[in-house]
């Protein structure tokens, strides 16, 4: 730079080594290394592995479409793909059928206890879906209580709970809160004047619903449906318990790994599954882009509530029924946990804590493993997630797309796919980590860090950057500013995100199944093993413990943020 107009003999204050604030660059480099090594590299590796045959090294001459061709040649593959689409689409359908009326009732009808009902309706989203799933065996299985009643009094033979029906029921009931929360959000945001003007013009209730209300919230319904689809197509826990011989893509991946340790085939299946997710995500982008134009309302007036007593009664009963049905599996797990004998009767014939006592033998060390892994992974997620958020929000640099990608990917990639990616990258030298605690922790961090990121970057965006500038001007280094000003101010959001991270990791099954070893068996794996041995009682007892940990964690997080549960999970 030309030093124009500067008198001769002026000392140039050059920033010496100690004057430069290296801390920010060190953090930036660390973040970059973590993202590249543990996310970009494994996914890239998985991509390559899917194009070579098992046991072939990755090389140009070995490239082949063999693994993908099996989707045409193998009935197993073809079926799994069709099954995945079928159960995911039917889950979307039933989740919408449950979520939509509930959203309408909760936002438009003046029914009592809305706040409690909303929290209860959010529960299925919080509790690990596979824990609720196996209660369907108790209810609708061969010796299930409902199966028994239907047969005895109505003479109906229920189809097997294993397969399409079971998976659809369990997933729809777990994911319908997405539809409920997202649609309720936009229903309560919708401009009341639009409906009132339809009123004035003489439109009746049903016409109004059909021509004004539903079209206005259609983008939210679409977005919710796509969210459910992505969740369902990537879900491993439910089909692994209720699937039986009915393979879907995630269980097929598991089968390829556990049965043949064929990472190449697993990679290819993962890729196909991810393609569906990405397709759905692209669709969602288009849908939500439209939504932005619709929900913009300038009025602060609340939507008018229906106060007709008949509508209130019917609405309340319908809402309660939907919520009760969706909580049935979780209540069943709780009851089964405390029952010693329960087969074919409406109520357990003998209640005791025997199931919990049985856990002592096999479940204590998995419980400890889960807590240790979850704590370490949570701390790492919080540290990395908030630093990445800081980098993304506060720093201008050209590599931002890497962060955006790294943060978006785990939303698109099902847990089992991340498991496969890490196996391909670290299942062989030079970096052999398979079976260690490290690989589980890495997997957990990769999957959960984006949630901390979201929370922290939201808090950072709400925080005026002049606070940090003021600290810098007063002479504080970057590290001091981050520690004394930034961190304390975003702490509530970050801690809450950490609590949620911890609870979801305690209930994590899909990634763990791909990566665990006997030494690092987690509580969810222990539940899975109990189920394989048909030990439903202990499985329910352990599931109850998981649910309690999850609920306590979420409750603490909501208290910390002063927010309702429903606001933290997808409610707009």
């Amino acid at each position, binding site marked *: 730079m030309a030093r124009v107009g500067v008198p001769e003999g002026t*000392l140039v*204050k*050059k920033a010496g080594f100690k004057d430069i604030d290296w801390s920010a660059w060190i953090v930036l480099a660390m973040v970059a290394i973590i993202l590249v090594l543990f996310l970009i590299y494994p996914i890239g590796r998985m991509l390559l592995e899917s194009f070579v045959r098992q046991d072939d090294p990755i090389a140009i001459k070995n490239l082949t479409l063999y693994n993908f061709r099996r989707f045409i040649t193998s009935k197993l593959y073809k079926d799994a793909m069709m099954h995945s689409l079928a159960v995911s689409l039917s889950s979307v359908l039933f989740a919408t059928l449950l979520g939509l009326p509930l959203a309408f009732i909760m936002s438009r009808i003046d029914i009592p206890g809305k706040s409690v009902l909303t929290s209860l309706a959010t529960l299925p989203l919080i509790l690990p879906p596979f824990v609720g799933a196996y209660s369907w065996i108790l209810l609708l299985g061969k010796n299930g209580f409902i199966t028994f009643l239907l047969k005895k009094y109505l003479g109906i033979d229920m189809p097997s709970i294993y397969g399409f029906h079971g998976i659809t029921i369990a997933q729809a009931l777990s994911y319908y809160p997405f539809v409920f929360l997202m649609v309720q959000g936009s229903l309560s945001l919708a401009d009341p004047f639009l409906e009132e003007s339809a009123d004035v013009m003489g439109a009746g209730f049903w016409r109004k619903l059909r021509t004004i209300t539903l079209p206005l919230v259609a983008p939210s319904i679409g977005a919710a449906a796509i969210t459910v689809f992505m969740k369902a197509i990537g879900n491993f826990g439910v089909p692994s318990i209720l699937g039986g011989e009915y393979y879907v893509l995630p269980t097929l991946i598991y089968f390829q790994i556990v049965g043949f340790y064929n990472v190449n085939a697993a990679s290819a299946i993962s890729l196909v599954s991810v393609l569906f997710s990405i397709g759905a995500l692209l669709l969602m982008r288009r849908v939500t882009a439209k939504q932005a134009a619709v929900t913009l309302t300038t009025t602060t007036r609340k939507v008018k509530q229906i106060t007709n007593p008949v509508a209130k009664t019917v609405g309340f009963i319908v809402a309660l029924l939907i919520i009760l049905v969706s909580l049935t599996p979780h209540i069943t797990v709780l009851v089964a946990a405390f029952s010693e004998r329960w087969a074919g009767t409406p109520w357990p014939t003998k209640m005791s804590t025997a199931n919990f006592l049985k856990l002592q033998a096999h479940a204590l060390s998995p419980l400890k493993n889960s807590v240790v892994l979850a704590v370490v992974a949570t701390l790492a997620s919080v540290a990395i997630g908030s630093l990445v958020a800081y980098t993304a929000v506060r720093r201008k640099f050209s590599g931002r797309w890497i962060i955006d990608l790294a943060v978006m990917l785990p939303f698109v990639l099902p847990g089992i796919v991340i498991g496969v990616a890490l196996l391909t990258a670290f299942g062989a030298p030079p970096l052999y980590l398979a079976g260690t605690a490290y690989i589980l922790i890495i997997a957990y961090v990769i999957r959960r860090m984006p949630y901390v990121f979201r929370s922290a970057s939201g808090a950072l965006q709400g925080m005026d950057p002049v606070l940090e*500038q*003021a600290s810098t001007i007063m002479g*504080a280094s970057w590290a001091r500013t981050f520690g004394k*000003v930034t961190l304390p101010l975003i702490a509530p959001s970050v801690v809450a995100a950490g609590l949620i991270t911890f609870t979801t990791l305690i209930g994590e099954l899909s990634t763990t199944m791909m990566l665990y070893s006997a030494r690092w068996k987690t509580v969810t794996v222990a539940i899975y093993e109990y189920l394989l041995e048909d030990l439903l009682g202990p499985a329910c007892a352990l599931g109850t413990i998981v649910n309690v940990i999850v609920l306590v964690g979420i409750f603490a997080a909501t208290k910390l943020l002063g927010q309702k549960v429903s606001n933290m999970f997808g409610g707009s």
Partner: protein
Amino acid sequence: MVNLSVRKLVKDFAGGTRAVDGIDFDVPAGTLFTLLGPSGCGKTTTLRMVAGLESPTSGSILFGNEDYTRFPPHKRNIGMVFQSYALFPHMSVFENVAYGLRVRTKQAEEVKSKVGKALELVGLSHTAARRPSQLSGGQQQRIALARALVYDPALLLLDEPLSNLDAKLRIQMREEIRRIQKAAGATTLYVTHDQEEALSISDVVAVIHSGRISQIGKPHDVYEKPASALVADFIGRANFIKCLITHKEGTGRAVKVAGSTITVGSCVGDQASFNAGDEALLFFRPEKAALSTSPVESKSVPCVVRQVLYLGESVRYTTELPTKEVVQLALNRRAEGIDEGSSANIVLEASDLRIFPMDQYGLIKRGN
């Protein structure tokens, strides 16, 4: 305390916008120097470059005889008051003020006594234990000032510090800021868009337009002897009338305005170049004119009064010249016998008049 010198400072933002376009100025040690200009003129960008929060595209920033242009902000030893104060909401008033001292790793005793003195200086010793959110706007403002001054920075920067206060408090606080600044003897760079604030608080004012300095001067010079129609128009209220130079004698000029001849006193600087036969813009402040029922030789222009607004401390007359040009007058009392619709004469003193080139006519705003 040091001198601040800014040399040929340029800042281009991404996308090619030139926010600051070659700015030069000097702030002598201990003085309060104000950058005044409309929003988007580049004054805040200049301040942020001095702070090190933005890096200049070219040019230099000197503290004393040291070039700090590329030096990191946290090592510059400056104090800054932000528009929104930027008090740390999670710290007490005491901890806020102590922050800069703790960064400089001062002894606990010293921190305590210095914070005490700083709070005393701004008259808020009793608020030490409170949180910023428990203070009023004016109090927060003073804490921000105490926080910026407590560690004796080489330079104090104030970025529109009064813009978040209501009108009455603003007047009170600008007196307070001037008092505290003089008591601390801090070399100060002050940024504002409020011309009254700038005139009242500053030792020297620099008027900035489109990234360039239009005029640097003492407040009364900038107001009474604006260097251009642009400055005259931005600071205070102004009348501009087209005129024709008819006669030149030394520094004096005679100009023809709407058929009347008027004397303009000592024309220096740019004005000195005007010769007989040139067209020009005649400028005067609304409060520098008088209204009379009878014409005054070489001093008056006839007009018709269109509107009279009584504002309490002044009376505002909107008049129209025979050329249909509108002239605003602000008199401190009602003119006897002159009402809406009356014909009258605008009386102008030679020393209150200035002339500017016609080509500046396009730059000024109309219709005030």
